[in-house]
């Protein structure tokens, strides 16, 4: 990784013995203690650490919940109530897990938008970015299957609607979609059989996700972190050791984030959920208004924007297929950002036109989220259609064209110049570049 010279020295006999057989101490020292970190990272860069912590938390609380949960159509709903009322501290662990899912998505969305703003997807970080998109897809699959497990009305009908997306394939090859859906369900409708397999996969996928996270961090440590200027590390002054500088900043970010998390867990644990999910699943009654969890709302709005016509274009029987294709494309297109953006300047700080498109894109995503929570009728449908077009225009038109027509602002010569001003580069009085200088 990086090919930097290692200054790890094993001090004990046992340490030397282990270093020759499994150099784990060397890796930790090189990659997580001495690792050169850009000196200008802001608090948006603490979300990587926050996400790692939440992932561990979700796995720990999830393993505990699985000790008390019953994955069957007859037992699931009651066992959740049992966890909340009877199991010692079950209410707390359950809230950590259910609120944790929302916090996970909140943090990952901040992390992704930070990447968009500072151009973290650009060369040489393409593989790092694609691994990130893969992690988001795995998170979505895991969260979706997890939401099935309480077996409330929203769980049941959420699964019904989302698994039915695959039946759109019937418009291409008759019978293919239905065959896939029945295969997913293990029956002719969503049932306890479906619940059981989703529980199995919900337990499995976080470990797959952890594997991809390891690759994500590996890829990060090969190419190095991006930073608010988007410049590469050029001089020794540009970086500081990861520990204690970046780690202590991460700790501040993590504790601030935990305050928000704890506030939800202890004061409004059900605020982000739906009252309908405290009604046991009933295959004969659809709730009047099905909405997914908040973190899926923008994608749900894109799916629903394709009614029998789209902005006046009649779609006929292809409406459903178009909606499904658009929804999946909305995620997949993110992976192509490294090649869609034609600008070689990474950070939007130095891109006067792109900056406005970024903020408008953020607004588009929030607007789609709002529209996804509204009923699919009247003006909401038209607005969803307009913002769906805006979403894709950002990637397919704004990214390539702005990069060509834009004149970027003058870039600082180096990271240290951007921090210390012109003529800087030397140490400012009172600042220590490394802890041993002070």
């Amino acid at each position, binding site marked *: 990784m990086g090919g930097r010279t290692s200054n790890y020295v094993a001090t004990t006999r046992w340490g030397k013995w282990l270093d020759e057989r499994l150099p784990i101490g060397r890796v930790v020292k090189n990659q997580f203690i001495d690792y050169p970190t850009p000196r200008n990272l802001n608090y948006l860069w603490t979300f990587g650490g926050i996400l790692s912590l939440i992932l561990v938390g979700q796995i720990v609380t999830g393993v505990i919940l699985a000790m008390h949960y019953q994955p069957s159509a007859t037992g699931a709903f009651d066992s959740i109530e049992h966890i909340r009322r009877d199991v010692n501290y079950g209410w707390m662990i359950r809230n950590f897990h259910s609120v944790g899912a929302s916090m996970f998505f909140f943090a990952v969305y901040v992390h992704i938008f930070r990447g968009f703003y500072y151009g973290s997807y650009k060369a040489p970080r393409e593989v790092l970015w694609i691994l990130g998109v893969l992690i988001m897809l795995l998170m979505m699959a895991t969260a979706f299957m997890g939401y099935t497990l309480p077996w409330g009305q929203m769980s049941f009908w959420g699964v019904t609607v989302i698994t039915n997306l695959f039946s759109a394939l019937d418009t291409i090859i008759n019978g293919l979609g239905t065959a896939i859906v029945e295969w997913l369900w*293990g029956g002719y*409708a969503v*049932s306890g059989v479906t619940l059981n397999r989703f529980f199995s996969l919900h337990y499995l996928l976080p470990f797959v996700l952890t594997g991809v996270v390891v690759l994500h961090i590996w890829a990060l440590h090969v190419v190095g972190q991006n930073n608010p200027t988007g410049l590469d590390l050029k001089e020794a002054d540009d970086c500081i050791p990861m520990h204690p500088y970046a780690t202590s900043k991460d700790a501040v970010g993590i504790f601030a984030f935990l305050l928000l998390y704890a506030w939800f867990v202890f004061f409004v644990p059900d605020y982000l959920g739906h009252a309908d999910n405290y009604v046991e699943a009933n295959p004969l009654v*659809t709730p009047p208004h099905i909405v997914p969890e908040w973190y899926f709302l923008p994608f749900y709005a894109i799916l629903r924007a394709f*009614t*029998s016509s789209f902005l006046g274009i009649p779609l006929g*029987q292809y409406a459903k297929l178009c*909606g499904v294709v658009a929804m999946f494309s909305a995620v997949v297109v993110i992976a192509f950002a490294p090649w869609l953006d034609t600008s070689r300047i990474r950070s939007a700080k130095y891109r006067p036109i792109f900056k406005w498109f970024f903020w408008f894109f953020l607004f588009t995503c929030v607007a789609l989220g709002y529209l996804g929570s509204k*009923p699919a009728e009247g003006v909401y449908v038209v607005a969803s259609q307009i913002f769906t077009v805006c979403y894709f225009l950002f990637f397919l038109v704004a990214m390539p064209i702005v990069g060509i027509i834009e004149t970027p602002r003058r870039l600082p010569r180096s990271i240290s110049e951007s921090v210390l001003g012109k003529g800087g580069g030397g140490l400012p009085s009172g600042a220590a570049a490394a802890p041993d200088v002070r």
Partner: protein
Amino acid sequence: MSTEALEPNRRDFLVVAGNAFAAVGAASLLWPFIQQMNPDASTMALSSVEVDLAPVKEGQAITAMWRGKPIFIRSRTKAEVTSAVDVDVKNLPDGLARNENLPADDPATDANRTIKGHENWIVLIGICTHLGCIPKGQVMGDERGEFGGWFCPCHGSQYDTSGRIRKGPAPRNLEVPTYAFMTDTKIKIG
């Protein structure tokens, strides 16, 4: 050893054949692992149910369960039948009957959606063909949409009194399951 390319010999043949057999074997072992997720024998066994229609009065509807799916059974009024018969099939979004009892390419006339001699009865799988919600319209006071049939609350699909899609994102008419009249007041579904 020669550095020139040689004619394939017996060993090359054995390597290719052996690897090919291993690949085919591995691929065929995959099938049971996929097939285990399909509907199992106990699910397939729930093949038919009988429903007594005697208590259902004109204009009323009941919902039966078949293979875990709701089955809409409505006794249509004369006006509802007429409004369904009067529709020109050419103007329908989905022009096919979607009736399990008939060939797949029959047109979606009201006659093809019902059984001859029992045209007042409409029997449907009560699952919206968009994304699988249960449309409203079975209970008195339910929203039934512009066409007096069924209205799906999830994404606004509207079905007429023959269960045909008329407006909204659903691609197909509500399906008519395999069923037959045992007597004038009893049907067997499946």
